[in-house]
């Protein structure tokens, strides 16, 4: 077990340079952007001289670039991401309010996509070269090529405008003030279409990876051993092939989450979901750089953490990894 703990520590340390690199990118963007860095950080169109002075002092903008970078690092890691001028609130507070909704959407869809992608791959691998396999394969190309926002619009057209099964926007019905279980149900009801969209666009990734991995694992020696030993096919597939074949999909879970968050931001905008996507759109339109960079930073850190967690989960599944 101590090997496992050492593994976790090693992995955790290894994401530090990544976070630092992102801070570095942000820092450069601020300094390369047109306009005065102090003005950008202040989040004001025309900050007064005193404000600029104060900010220059606080962020060390009157000091050499290297020192500024150090201060910027320190602030970013403390969670001080500057002020948003459109909301006149600290960026970090704005993000804190909305990140939950975004993560709810992203994680739900990622897990659903993982499960259904794996299931479909296992199912289609039983009908190699059949019609079903071809249809699923082409469908996976099409879904992979589909812009998330467009798919969201199409689903709204079909299920909300035409069939009127689902609401078009929001996270809950603001007119009814529901509580407890009813509120939970209401959120699920609103969650359905956005999650469906995001799940659909992620399924191809898991489907393809698992499909080819099932194929590869089926040819591995130990499957031959198990067949030679007279185990039933079903048992071999469900226990030995599947557990070995999902390992690659687990490793890409963290990476795919990054892709999912991108999709989520766009889908949130379509469904007026009260998450970070909306915030991002406002920031883009009103050119609120601070807010934009803050969102970027927080999302990047979230993804790093997600990748770390999937690595750890992977190590639980695959005993070989802990000893490397």
């Amino acid at each position, binding site marked *: 077990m101590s090997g496992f703990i050492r593994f976790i520590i090693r992995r955790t340390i290894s994401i530090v340079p990544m976070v630092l690199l992102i801070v570095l990118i942000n820092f450069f963007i601020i300094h390369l952007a047109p306009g005065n860095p102090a003005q950008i950080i202040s989040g004001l169109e025309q900050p007064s001289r005193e404000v600029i002075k104060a900010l220059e002092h606080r962020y060390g903008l009157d000091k050499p670039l290297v020192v500024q970078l150090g201060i910027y690092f320190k602030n970013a890691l403390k969670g001080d991401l500057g002020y948003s001028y459109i909301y006149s609130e600290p960026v970090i507070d704005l993000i804190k309010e909305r990140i939950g909704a975004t993560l709810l959407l992203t994680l739900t869809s990622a897990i659903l996509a993982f499960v259904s992608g794996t299931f479909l791959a296992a199912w289609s691998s039983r009908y190699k070269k059949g019609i079903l396999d071809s249809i699923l394969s082409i469908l996976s190309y099409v879904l992979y090529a589909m812009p998330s926002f467009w798919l969201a619009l199409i689903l709204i057209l079909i299920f909300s405008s035409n069939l009127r099964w689902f609401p078009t926007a929001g996270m809950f019905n603001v007119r009814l003030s529901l509580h407890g279980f009813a509120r939970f149900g209401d959120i699920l009801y609103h969650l359905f279409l956005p999650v469906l969209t995001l799940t659909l666009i992620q399924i191809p990734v898991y489907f393809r990876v698992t499909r080819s991995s099932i194929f590869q694992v089926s*040819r*591995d*020696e*130990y499957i*031959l*051993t*198990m*067949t*030679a*030993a*007279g*185990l*039933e096919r079903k*048992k071999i597939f469900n*226990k*030995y092939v599947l*557990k*070995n074949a999902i*390992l690659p999909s687990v490793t890409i879970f963290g990476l795919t989450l990054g892709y999912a968050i991108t999709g989520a931001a766009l889908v949130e905008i379509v469904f007026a979901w009260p998450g970070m996507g909306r915030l991002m759109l406002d920031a883009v339109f009103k050119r609120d750089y601070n807010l934009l960079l803050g969102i970027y930073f927080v999302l990047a850190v979230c993804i790093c953490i997600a990748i770390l967690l999937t690595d750890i989960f992977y190590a639980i*599944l*695959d*005993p*070989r990894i802990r*000893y490397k």
Partner: protein
Amino acid sequence: MLNMPFMRLKKVDISYKLENASVKAVRSFSCDIEKGDIVGIVGESGSGKSTLALGIMRLLPPNALLSAEIMSFDGKNILNLNQDELRRIRWKEISIVFQKAMNALSPVHKIFTQMYDVITAHSSDIPKGRAYKMLTELFGKINLPSKVLNMYPHELSGGMMQRVMIAMSLIHNPKMIIFDEVTTALDVITQGQLLDEIKRLVKEFGLTAIIITHDIGVVNEVCNKVAVMYAGELLEYGRVKDVIFSPLHPYTKALVKSHPDLRIGNELIKGIPGSLPDLTYPSKGCIFYPRCDVRLDLCKDVKPKISVLGDHIVKCHRIQG
């Protein structure tokens, strides 16, 4: 099927279909194995030994084509068995230890889990506790500590892994075991230990065994019969003392000569010049013709018949039986 030997293979052909060729890996292979025999199959790399073993187990990959006049085992016709009948025979009556032990078990399941699944594949209502006890005992016989049961395959050394696979092959007390180059990947000392253990176990369990190797020395040590294979064909078959100490086929002679422990007197160790023929073509004459140093004109175009000299079989134009 009266008067049938324990295992009879007659005119076994196995070929692998490739995109635009077909590799004839086993060609018209025939031999009989009696109960209690320990048959060594020797031959250089690529001569079709593993393919033959997989064919006997009916475990060939989908791109392989198997045909034979007779393939019988313990009174059963192996050729006609359906998947379910095969499943019941495998491991219960005949088991195999594969060439690459390191990959022979699932890397993400503990040894015990996999062993237990093999146990329950043929006898369903054995509780885990009893299985554990049984396996501990079995492991003891092959010098494996029982803690190995709680380990993962990657935590074991090559020799331990090979022992685990041998233990696994013994679980259901089969009548026959095929050992496919079980010692090849191991160091000399482990090799020796393992061979001794195999010898002992074969006796203790009253097994019939096929031991595949490219080391004729191993055959000499463990087996009572030996089959010499070359490019998919059986060239010579008989008792070890006949085949190794008075070989008839030029290829067997060369094999024996090239072995440091078996050569007679102080003859120089000689390799055999040339290499295996391309297996995608059918051979017209003797398969060994291109590399044979005592070939006749006849050998080029006419396939030699099998000459039977008592229980010593050889396929060479120079030998008449």
